[in-house]
């Protein structure tokens, strides 16, 4: 499947690049040709009388213009994606229908050289061609808001299309199908055609008003061509009814010009040239709301359409129009349309119901999440206030130790004195330094400090982390540190690394809470240019090993943690150029594996 998909993709890309290669020059030629055709026709028709050559020229040039427009729309559709693709393909479909209608004219007038019979299928295509175009407009490819409720809009759209078809069948076709009354059919179909064109023009004008940038340019062209076409078809219908029309006459000039305009618009439109940039720069504040409004509008329109069918039916029955065959046909048509529209309504309601259920779930989930985090925030703030107190106390201790250090210096500087006294003094100094170091370690937690790298021995760091974690707790968990011989030093920031160790050790001990035989094994191994530290516990293991490093991921009860610890660890380890991962051990419990780069080889080895 994927291979076929790839091939299709390749083919499309090739087509795209090919078309780009030949585009610019041949496009120009086509545009010039499209310009020339109506001018030539105007010249020919001003002098000419009805002749086969003139008719053939008129028909063929119109067919050529329509087919070209269709092909260019289709090409655009193939080379784009998503909503624009649907837009262009629908456009191509509309123009394709029109081309088929035109082809029928060519077939009769040029190929068979006989007057065109009133072909219902052709007329129908001519009217119905507006439907895909309308659908294309309703897709609103110019509006790229993030999550348009498309599916709901699709139901409204389908209802409108059904209704559009219904109007044509009701108004005009009824005479032909049920009444066999060609004259009424012709006059009515002209009226319906004209009304359809007006409605389409109006919608197009609204679209032009609401769009921006390149798309507005394209829509404007389209609007102009459509208006010209509208004018031309009214003109031609008049001429036909007064019997002065023949294909290729000067009544055809505006029509051909309108087609040429469509064709040029199709060839030259380059709204997709920079779709993303153009849109985002030109519509910075177009988020959701206008789209919502369009949806509401189409929903309202489809509502009016749906409700109008029973009203029309009621009118038909009450006014006694239903007596003849046409009336009968119309009643049946109305009933079937009503059926279709109500089925669409049911589907829409179902969809809405499902969406509502989904949104209800989302909303309650979001709300309970918020509640949880709010509780955690309260806990966190409490801890933070305690942390501030700790920081203040730490400063007090530091200054006290500084004073102690000064006194120790004073005592130590005295030359005379026995060994015992010297030893005592030295011990006091060492204890003061140790206190200082501990306080510094603690404070480094509270501040963002730049990495202060040095070569470190891992084992003492681990030991002090273990001591710091276990201080003031019940020691139900044993901790073992296993070290391979000759583990190299690592390059890193002692404070930060000890923070990581603290988290991992505390997590492991938490995981084994209440477990009498709990054992945390910390294994240090050297591996080529890295050292690897494994923290293996005998707890219950991790629920989702893949997610533990995500910020705010936690399995602890509210108030016990906010799930930032391991994500912080991850950040620190990556900063050190190391790696951290975790998995569940087959024999139970979890293992966190920490890999840190070893310090650059010692100078002694370099000599060797």
């Amino acid at each position, binding site marked *: 499947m994927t291979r076929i998909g790839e091939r299709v993709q390749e083919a499309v890309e090739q087509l795209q690049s090919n078309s780009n290669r030949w585009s610019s020059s041949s496009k120009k030629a086509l545009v010039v040709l499209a310009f020339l055709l109506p001018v030539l026709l105007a010249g020919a028709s001003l002098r000419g009388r009805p002749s086969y050559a003139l008719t053939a020229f008129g028909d063929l040039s119109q067919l050529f213009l329509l087919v070209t427009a269709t092909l260019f729309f289709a090409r655009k559709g193939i080379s784009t994606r998503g909503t624009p693709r649907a837009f262009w393909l629908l456009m191509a479909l509309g123009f394709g229908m029109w081309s088929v209608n035109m082809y029928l004219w060519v077939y009769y007038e040029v190929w068979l050289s006989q007057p065109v019979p009133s072909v219902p299928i052709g007329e129908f295509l001519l009217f119905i061609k507006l439907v895909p175009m309308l659908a294309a407009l309703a897709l609103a490819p110019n509006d790229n808001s993030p999550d348009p409720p498309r599916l709901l809009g699709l139901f409204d759209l389908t209802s409108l299309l059904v209704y559009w078809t219904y109007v044509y069948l009701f108004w005009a076709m009824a005479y032909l199908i049920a009444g066999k009354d060609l004259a009424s059919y012709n006059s009515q179909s002209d009226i319906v055609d004209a009304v359809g064109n007006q409605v389409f023009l109006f919608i197009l004008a609204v679209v032009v008003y609401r769009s921006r940038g390149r798309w507005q340019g394209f829509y404007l062209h389209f609007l102009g061509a459509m208006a010209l076409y509208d004018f031309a078809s009214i003109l031609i219908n008049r001429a036909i009814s007064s019997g002065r029309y023949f294909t290729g006459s000067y009544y055809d000039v505006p029509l051909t010009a309108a087609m040429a305009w469509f064709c040029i618009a199709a060839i030259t439109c380059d709204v997709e040239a920079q779709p993303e940039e153009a849109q985002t720069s030109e519509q910075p504040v177009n988020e959701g709301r206008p789209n919502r409004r369009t949806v509401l509008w189409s929903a309202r329109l489809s509502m009016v359409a749906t409700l109008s069918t*029973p009203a029309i039916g009621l009118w038909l029955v009450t006014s006694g129009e*239903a007596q003849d065959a046409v009336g009968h046909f119309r009643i049946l048509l109305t009933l079937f349309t009503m059926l279709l529209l109500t089925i669409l309504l049911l589907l829409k309601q179902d969809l809405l119901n499902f969406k509502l259920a989904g*949104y209800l779930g989302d909303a309650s989930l979001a709300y309970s*999440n918020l509640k949880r985090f709010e509780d955690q925030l309260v806990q966190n703030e409490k801890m933070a206030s305690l942390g501030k107190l700790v920081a203040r106390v730490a400063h007090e201790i530091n200054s006290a130790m500084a004073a102690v250090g000064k006194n120790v210096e004073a005592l130590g500087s005295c030359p005379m004195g026995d060994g015992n006294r010297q030893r005592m003094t030295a011990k006091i100094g060492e204890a003061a330094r140790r206190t200082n170091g501990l*306080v510094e370690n603690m404070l480094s937690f509270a501040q963002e400090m730049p990495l202060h790298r040095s070569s470190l021995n891992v084992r003492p760091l681990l030991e002090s982390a273990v001591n710091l974690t276990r201080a*003031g707790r019940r020691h139900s968990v044993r901790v073992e540190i296993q070290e391979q011989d000759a583990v190299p030093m690592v390059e890193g920031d002692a404070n930060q690394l000890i923070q990581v160790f603290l988290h991992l050790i505390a997590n492991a001990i938490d995981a084994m809470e209440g477990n009498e035989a709990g054992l945390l094994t910390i294994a240090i191994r050297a591996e080529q240019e890295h050292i690897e530290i494994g923290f293996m516990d005998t707890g219950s293991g991790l629920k989702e090993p893949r997610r533990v490093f995500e910020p705010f991921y936690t399995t*602890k009860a509210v108030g016990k943690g906010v799930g930032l610890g391991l994500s912080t660890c991850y950040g620190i380890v990556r900063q050190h150029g190391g790696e951290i991962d975790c998995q569940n051990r087959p024999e139970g419990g979890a293992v966190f594996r920490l890999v840190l780069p070893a310090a650059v080889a010692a100078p002694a080895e370099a000599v060797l």
Partner: protein
Amino acid sequence: MIGEAELIRTIDTIWTRIALGLVIAQICAAVFLHASTALTWLGDTFPCLLALVVMLSFRSNRRQSSGTVRLFWGLNEAGFGILFLSQTVWFCYEVVLRRSAPNPIAGDGLFLLALVPTLASFTLRPHADGAAGDLRFRRLDFLLLLFWWVCLYLYFALPWQLVVKSYPNYNPAYYILALSEHGAALAAVGALYVKSKGSWKQFYRQFFFALSAFAIGSLLQNIFIDRGLYYTGSFYDVPWGFSLALLTVAAALGGNLESQTGESEVTLRNRGLWSARLAMIGVISLPLLAIATVFDHHTPQPIIIFRLRLIFGAVLFLGTLTFLKLSSMDRELLRLLGLTESSLESLKLVQKQILGSQRMAALGRLASGATHEISNPLTAILGYAELLRDNPTLTQEEHQSVKDIQAQVHLAQAAINGMRRFVRVEAESEAEKTPTL
């Protein structure tokens, strides 16, 4: 399940007693009296009173309950209120005005309507509760169903009274409608019986019995009316009256029931879905009926016209209702969307705040362990200083230095102790300290 004695105590309410008394009186009247004005009078009074008693028994249930169950009883109360009304219409015509009642609209129509609220009450599934969230939408669905049912009556039966007067056409249509309604109600209550448990099951079973008696009773009445054997107050009225007495027993059984929670989220959500679908299928059936009418060449033209008008009017009305519902659903959707968005925004804010204070909080969590650790070297310093102070070789200045060291350590210890007190207070509010983030 409850024991026999307790069962009797449960169903022995004032309503069941009255109902039983009425049924016995009805039987006596049917057996001992012949067709006469007095019997007609009595025969019209009994159903009236029985329907009233059923309604009142549901009413007393409603007053004792709450939530979905309350709505369930309320709907049933309304239904039998309608039944009471339809019987009153008969009573008014036959007893007060002393002429035979005009068959269709008031009596029959109301009689058909009476079971619709009961049907709607079954869709509530009162035994399996949860938060009955979208009652608003379901009320509209109920309205749709009610109106649809009225339409069916207007479509099938009424034209044979209003447009072309023809009892041979009217009566079967009416009977079939009534029968299908009873069938639907029985099927619904049967489904509930299968799905429920315990006391609710018992209640549904009784309801099922009562409703089947109701259906059979009214079928019997209709059959004997058609055969011309029926007269008001005759023995043919008894089964139907008895079914009403059975209903009061059902009400007594259901008196103290409460809905059992514990249904899964999914089924809760899907509940509204089905009543909505049912209502819409009702709406869709109307154009289908109309299409059938158009192709029906046996029915007289005026009736066809009447039916078409009816259907077009009905679809217009039902369509309007549906769109009202859709637009309110749409608004609800937007409201939920807004709610979700604002929750997510607040969530982001809260997470940001947590991130902002996490380092300080980490320090706070470390406090108890760290103070312990720091205390050790401080105590060591004090010990060494004590030994040093006793050393005789110290000069006066050096002595002062040692004293100074001691004083500083005391200061530090005091600070730590102050913090410890605070930590202990905090620790009491938290269950247990963990030095993790």
